[in-house]
């Protein structure tokens, strides 16, 4: 009888210890994440359909001890953007060039009350890489859609309306890396239907991935020379015929940027094919 009681007591102590450890671990996690805030800001809160949105992020350490946050922006893959049309659920925005940089994690030490702004030139929102589920059976496609939770349209903002945009990132834990999630409050973006000349241009560029890529990142994103030429000619024509359109502003500056990069690229690859001799 005595040994049975002893056993029960041991089990109770073990359970209590486990419970306390769990509560402690949870509260310290909450403490850590609630001491840091992530905010997101956009260069505009009122845009036309098909216009590029530039985002900025800021971490603020509200606590009294230093924390570590990732500092490698969207290319490092530790910041995700979620978007919803007001009243619907948030879905992930996807760019196939984000999250590709693999190397040492760029860690930023944020002292007490310090803040750090990430002004990432790649953090632009326009074209959304949509997933393909057509090869899956209907049940699996539904499952994958739910688990991936990605935006299923070609544009992040496919229709006019009011959208909410938020960022999800992480705090860095000593043992597990970028593992403590942190989420920003959403910001509101009003997307307007273009009118007049802008509508005319929008109807011409709508659904054109190459043009969206040019507007968004100054790249035509294709290695196909003929397709490149065709796109450049289309863009030039739009700029010429609709110089005052809101889209022409993006197209003009990014076409120049693209040309400069292309010239640099051509020079670079010419060197690859015809290497110079060492002295």
């Amino acid at each position, binding site marked *: 009888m005595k040994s049975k009681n002893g056993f029960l007591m041991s089990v109770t102590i073990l359970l209590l210890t486990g419970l306390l450890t769990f509560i402690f671990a949870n509260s310290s996690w909450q403490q850590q994440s609630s001491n840091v805030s992530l905010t997101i800001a956009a260069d505009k809160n009122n845009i036309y359909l098909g216009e590029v949105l530039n985002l900025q992020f800021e971490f603020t350490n509200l606590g009294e001890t230093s924390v570590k946050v990732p500092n490698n922006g969207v290319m490092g893959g530790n910041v995700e953007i979620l978007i919803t049309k007001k009243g619907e659920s948030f879905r992930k925005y996807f760019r*196939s060039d984000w999250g590709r940089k693999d190397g040492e994690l760029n860690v930023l030490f944020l002292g007490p009350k310090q803040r750090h702004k990430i002004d990432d030139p790649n953090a632009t929102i326009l074209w959304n890489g949509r997933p393909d589920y057509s090869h899956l059976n209907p049940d699996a496609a539904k499952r994958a859609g739910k688990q991936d939770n990605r935006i299923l349209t070609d544009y992040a903002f496919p229709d006019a309306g009011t959208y909410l945009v938020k960022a999800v990132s992480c705090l860095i834990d000593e043992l597990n890396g970028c593992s403590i999630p942190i989420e920003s409050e959403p910001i509101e973006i009003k997307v307007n239907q273009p009118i007049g000349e802008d509508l005319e241009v929008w109807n011409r560029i709508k659904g054109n991935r190459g043009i969206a890529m040019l507007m968004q990142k100054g790249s035509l994103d294709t290695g196909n020379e003929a397709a490149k030429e065709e796109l450049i000619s289309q863009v030039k024509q739009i700029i010429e015929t609709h110089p005052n359109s809101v889209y022409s502003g993006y197209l003009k500056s990014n076409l120049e940027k693209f040309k400069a990069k292309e010239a640099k690229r051509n020079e670079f690859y010419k060197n690859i094919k015809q290497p110079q001799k060492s002295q």
Partner: protein
Amino acid sequence: MKKLLFVWTMTAYFILAAMASEAKAQTVYMYLDVHYNSQYRYVDGLTITALDYWAGLYYDPAVLGELYRTDINETPLDSGYDVGYADWIDAEVYLFTTNYVEGKTYCTASTHFVIDAYTGQRTVVDAFYICITIPNLPTPTPTNTPTPTPTPTPIVTSVSFEQIYPSTMPISPNPAVAPHNPGIGLRIFPDDDVPQDPVDFRLVRVVATLSQPISNVPVYFRNFDLDDPATDPIIDPMGNAGNDNNGTPQAGQLTILNGCGVNQGIIFCPSNASGVAVIEFTVTRQPGDNFAIAAGLNPTEVGAVNVNGIDLTNGSGQTIPTSCTTELVCRSPMLTVWRRLHIEVDSMGESIQNFILGTVTQTVRMRAGQQYTLPIASSQTIEENRFENGRIVINYRDYEIVSNTANTVTIDNPGQSVTIFANTTFQMFDDDDFNDDDGLFPGDGTLDGDAGEDIPEPDISLLTANSDDPNANVFASAYVRPVYDFYDPRDNSFFQANTIGDFETDLRPLFLDWDSRSTNTADEFWSVYLLGSYQHTLIEDNDPSTELATRGIVDAITGDTSGGSDGEGSGALIFKEVLRPREIDDPSPYNNERHVVAHEVGHLFSGQHTDGGLMGSPISSTNFSSNTIRRIRALAHP
């Protein structure tokens, strides 16, 4: 006393030489019959339309067959329609019913057609019917003779799979890969053996063997999507339930071959003289999809089979075995889909020009044991402090570089006093040394930008060829096996110390010997490209050491299908120079080349840093997380 067996047949042949031709008569052969079998209590029939050579030049045969019982003739007991091909393949419909009643009359009705091969127009040639009546049972007379031992009713004793087309990866036992695959049953590689392979390796033959070698016994088949044996809720969110495959059709597909038919919604095929019935089955191509086939002689029993985990149960809830002795329904082993990943591995050639040339612009007299800053000029852009801990060669003497700007270099002069005159040329090397084979002291004259050293291929030790061991093949947990079978897969053609940018259009032109380009977006033949490279952009090559290094990068993360092959992940660059041990400060066991290589291939399978594990940033495991495994298994192609 021997039991009497009644097998009666009514047969009719018709030959119609009806269609005119320019020189030769065109003949249509029409056949129909009806039988009954009193032992197994079924009625069946056959209708055929066939053409001779001359008719076959212009037409294809077709036939509509129906089996009726005359007293309930509003709807047929069975029916079918088949189209043949010229005089090569006859149009045949096999009709079958277990609705066997003594004293009733059963008729096979046939409508025979020809289809114009050029216009597709179908013309009725003729229609017939033929009937047979099953005699009433004789009234039993009391007798004292003992009851005869009944002939045992046949059953299906086994259901097996056979490869229809010979493959380099034939059906074989499914290996266990902890923790998600317990290794039960068989596996199949339904992907192409070679790019644009004309053979469809998804097709397998299902063979049901009867307990007795009796021909013409209809064997009923049903295909099932078994539960995914993984217990992880991300990989298998449906728990113990089946119908969780990713591919389409979900449970694969049975093919109704000539001579086969459908009864009560269940496909059957007749046995041959050896007591073997065969049907074709098409599996899906998604790795980890699993299937089983149930077979039996009674459509009601086969229709009552259910999935319970990776088991099949009969109508009474009992588990159906794969080797049967008395069971009315038997089942095949579980057949699981695996895929091959054809990895093309290239690397850059011998290092050249990994240095800067220029001139010292002012005369400097240097005393021994002191540091000096020399003003310099070069036609090449000089990144600030890129050359720290590097080597400069002036007048055949080596000096260690302490720091540099775009137009100065600060050096140590440990040796004797020397004067460097204006316009003296110099050659500067940074601390690049991908294989750590140069000396530890930058001024010792060994740092040479790896001149003449060939860049090796990436470390693929976590993607070991033909391995099912998850420690050697990280993709094994997603039912994927790497192979290295590209013709001329080891090209060494150029060297570039740095890439020009991050964009896909900056990186893909470096895939100069990309032999697997044609299968980049092929669903049937998965391929990826790996290039052993040197360093990423000048600002991400760890020169100076305060700079962050990019250790690997893909041209794109797979998952954007909006641009065709543009924006789709195809290949990865692995930067050997920054992956050498001396360049990696963090001692994590995952901070090494083999993990980076596996991580990059994970991106080509749509893996993302937020997946964690091997895809995490930083990498925190040698294994893919459940999220990445789920993505790999649901992808059309990497």
